[in-house]
């Protein structure tokens, strides 16, 4: 356990350090923020003065040292565009992305488990074949294409669902949530479905193949031989053992889901972190870029840790991964 905790902390620091370096490497490549905060007819000399004021003319290593110094105090710099500390902006936008990821994860869990289990138990049935066929088609359609088709069909053509944004949100203790209004839920439907479209087929296939593997195993045969009820075998014995690999993969996939929010949020103008990231790239709002990277890195370290702990809880025979 000690080793586990130390390892995680070390990993977190490593991640943060690498990210901040990468962030700094690209900082100078995504453009000059001074162009973004001044009108075009401002004179060159005036621009140079602003650049000097912002410390952009300092040598890169000095800027980096300054950044690390401030970061140690929790200050990730000022967002040029929002005129606020970058960390504040990230925290403002995080609820949108987290809610989107949460709802898509729910969709994935709620749909993939029954479908995957069904397809594993009755692999020959027509419905299973349809599910499996559908899932491989689903894997093959890029997420942005699904999003575009969704907007075209449900918003523009049929006019049933809103085409962009989060709709009405309610501020609950600083957390701006879309869960408390009907409008918010309507706005969630298309983006969350699009986002889950990439992972849902993968999870159905994963659950099916793991479940089938478990059903083939000796102890399940033994359970049949013992004459246990089939639901007991399927859900208590087989499914429980299916969960382990699913959880491990699930944790990693969550990271990919967060990245795919960049695509989904771009299409739907969903005001979350992914959208913020692309905007920050376009606006060369470099403090935001670095803050975003560090935030996502932090989330991933936390998620990996949680996955490892859950893994240990679900399967007490293996102690937490990474310890003996």
């Amino acid at each position, binding site marked *: 356990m000690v080793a586990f905790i130390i390892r995680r902390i070390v*990993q977190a620091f*490593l*991640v943060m350090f*690498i990210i901040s370096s*990468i962030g700094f*490497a*690209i900082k*100078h*490549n*995504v453009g000059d923020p001074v162009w973004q905060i001044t009108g075009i007819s401002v004179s060159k000399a005036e621009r140079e003065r602003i650049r000097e004021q912002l410390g952009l003319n300092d040598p890169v290593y000095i800027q980096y040292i300054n950044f690390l110094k401030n970061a140690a105090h929790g200050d990730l710099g000022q967002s040029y565009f929002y005129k606020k500390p970058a960390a504040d902006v990230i925290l403002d936008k995080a609820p949108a992305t987290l809610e989107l990821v949460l709802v898509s994860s729910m969709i994935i869990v709620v749909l993939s488990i029954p479908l995957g289990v069904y397809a594993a138990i009755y692999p020959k049935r027509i419905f299973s074949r349809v599910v499996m066929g559908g899932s*491989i*088609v689903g*894997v*093959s*359609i*890029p*997420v*942005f*294409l699904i999003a*575009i088709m969704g907007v*075209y069909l449900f918003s*523009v053509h049929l006019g049933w669902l809103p085409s962009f944004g989060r709709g009405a949100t309610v501020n609950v203790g600083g957390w701006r949530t879309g869960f408390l209004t009907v409008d918010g839920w309507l706005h969630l439907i298309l983006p969350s479905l699009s986002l889950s479209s990439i992972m849902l087929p993968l999870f159905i296939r994963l659950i099916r193949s793991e479940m089938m593997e478990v059903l083939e195993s000796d102890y399940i045969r033994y359970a049949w031989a013992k004459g246990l009820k089939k639901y007991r075998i399927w859900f208590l014995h087989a499914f429980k053992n299916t969960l382990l*690999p699913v959880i*491990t*993969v699930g*944790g*990693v996939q969550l*990271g*990919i889901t*967060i*990245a*795919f929010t*960049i*695509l989904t949020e*771009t299409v739907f103008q969903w005001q979350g972190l992914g959208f913020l990231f*692309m905007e920050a*790239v376009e606006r060369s709002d470099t403090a935001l870029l670095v803050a975003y*990277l560090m935030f*996502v*890195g932090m989330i*991933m*370290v936390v998620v*990996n840790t949680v996955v490892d702990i859950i893994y240990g809880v679900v399967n007490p025979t293996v102690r937490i991964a990474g310890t003996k």
Partner: protein
Amino acid sequence: MTDRWQRFKKSALFHDFKGDKVAIVSFATLVLLFICAFSAPLIAPYNPYDSANIDIMSSEIPPVWMAGGTNDYLLGTDAQGRDLLSTMIYGMRISIIIGICAVALQAVIGIIIGLIAGYYGGKLDGFFMRLADVQLSFSYLMVAIFVSAVLQAAVGVGRFAEIAVPFLIIVIGLAQWPQYARTVRASVLAEKKKEYVEAARVTGFGAHRIMWRHILPNCMSPILVLSTIQVANAVMSEAALSFLGLGMPVTRPSLGSLINAGFEYIFSGSWWITAFPGVLLVILVLAVNLLGDFLRDALNPKLYKG
């Protein structure tokens, strides 16, 4: 050669293949698409890279069966007046080249690192696997966005069109190596324990010879299955990057940048500019995925999970 072919015909893989209609159809589709893509200059009605063929005045002509369509442009033209069919064939060629080369690059990096990490173990292993962990905790898309930002600045802008293809290959290749490294490492760890490796060491073979000539061939089935999946992924990644505007330039479009360019026209009625490349992309990726599925069932390798 014929000998090998004979043996292949007798193999279990071929036997399975013959019995699997889906695999046959997807393989045939893939072969057809590849032939089309690589004989693009021969079969495409126009050369979309030759500006003599492009006239802005013939832009957004609908497909031949729609009102306003002409026989000159079977699937219509795009917003620049390029023949859509030709542009798609050339675009598919770029997508396929990027997909395959990117996978080759990831495979080379991943296999080298996986072999070294798995075979030598110890600190080297620890270092590479931590690196892979860290990189995997960011998805490839994000990694690709960073790498592309850094590289784009490094190469300057003037010659971007010429280096865009190798550029994307490097971006996607660098973003995806951990998948290979982990799979290869897992296989190497399993193979390393087997006595044929000890036999090779007793004979005095060097580590390189053992890794490359003895262990690696035994890791091929997971690598093969992973490679098909990764080709599909790489084609999709390229499309995603192009969709975000970080991919192929508009003058040498891939399927992804064609979809992106057409996206702006989807409400205006010129749906074909985005729809046809979209359908082609899905067919291409689907065929690769179905083939990968077949291989996975037939070879039944243990892939590294997660």
